[in-house]
């Protein structure tokens, strides 16, 4: 009987060690993208965590081990947090600065927009033409932006003339 209990306990011990080994194996596999020294450090940290958690619990039965591993979360998630800390920050910063550059309006851009819109009413012909000069002087807008702005401005200048001609043709 004593022998049976001892064998049972030994078997259980093996099982829980297997669970921990499997978990750390999955972590190591998921962490293959990390630099070698950081990979072994991370696996070491998690191994230490499991050890401390089990010591703290004072038991090493299957339920305790499974709970400790569950609370750690999937190994893949731990690795993605590691990758996220390295890659996400500079990437996000680059996206932000790019967006700021595209949307940023300096004095030149504001004058250009005002001349193209309000300028067309206050100073017909001259206003929009001056506006276009400011558009092309902008350092913030790309050439593509400038060509689009110019096309719209020229179209708006030509449109009244076209309308006038078509009205004449209709009445005549």
């Amino acid at each position, binding site marked *: 009987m004593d022998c049976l209990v001892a064998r049972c306990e030994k078997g259980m011990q093996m099982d829980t060690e297997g669970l921990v080994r499997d978990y750390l194996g999955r972590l190591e596999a998921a962490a293959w993208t990390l630099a070698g020294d950081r990979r072994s450090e*991370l696996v070491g*940290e998690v191994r230490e965590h499991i*050890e*401390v958690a089990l010591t703290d619990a004072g038991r090493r039965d299957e339920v305790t081990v499974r709970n400790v591993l569950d609370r750690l*979360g999937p190994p893949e998630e*731990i*690795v993605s*947090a590691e990758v996220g800390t390295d890659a996400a920050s500079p990437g996000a910063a680059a996206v932000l600065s790019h967006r700021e550059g595209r949307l940023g309006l300096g004095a030149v851009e504001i004058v250009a927009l005002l001349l193209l819109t309000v300028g067309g009413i206050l100073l017909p012909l001259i206003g929009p033409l001056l506006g276009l000069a400011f558009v092309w002087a902008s350092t913030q807008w790309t050439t593509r932006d400038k060509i689009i702005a110019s096309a719209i401005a020229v179209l708006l200048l030509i449109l009244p003339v076209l309308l006038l001609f078509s009205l004449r043709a209709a009445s005549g």
Partner: protein
Amino acid sequence: MVASETRDSLTELRRGVLEFCVLAILRGGESYGFDIVRELSSGELLTSEGTIYPLLSRLRRQEWVTTTWRESDAGPPRRYYRITDRGGRALDTFATDWTRFRVAVDGLLGGEVREGDADGH
């Protein structure tokens, strides 16, 4: 759908404040991984406990914390984390920003609740 989206943004929020929560814990005295985790988990700040190690590694690289290995009474040696002056300054800045952020959000949420009540009755 809405519930899961809300949870996602909670995860994002958590991610943003977690490192400062760790610094705040360390300001109370040096501590080791498992102990930091225990304190964070009790406040529902950490869902997958393992993700603390990538975070601690980053804090170390940023020189916001330093580490020392110490023998423990039970179990293997433990890596203890201690906040640096630099980490302390980062925490101070965050604490100021956080207060402003919290007041602004609380103000808006409070307003929304009142409007909701007015509509409801």
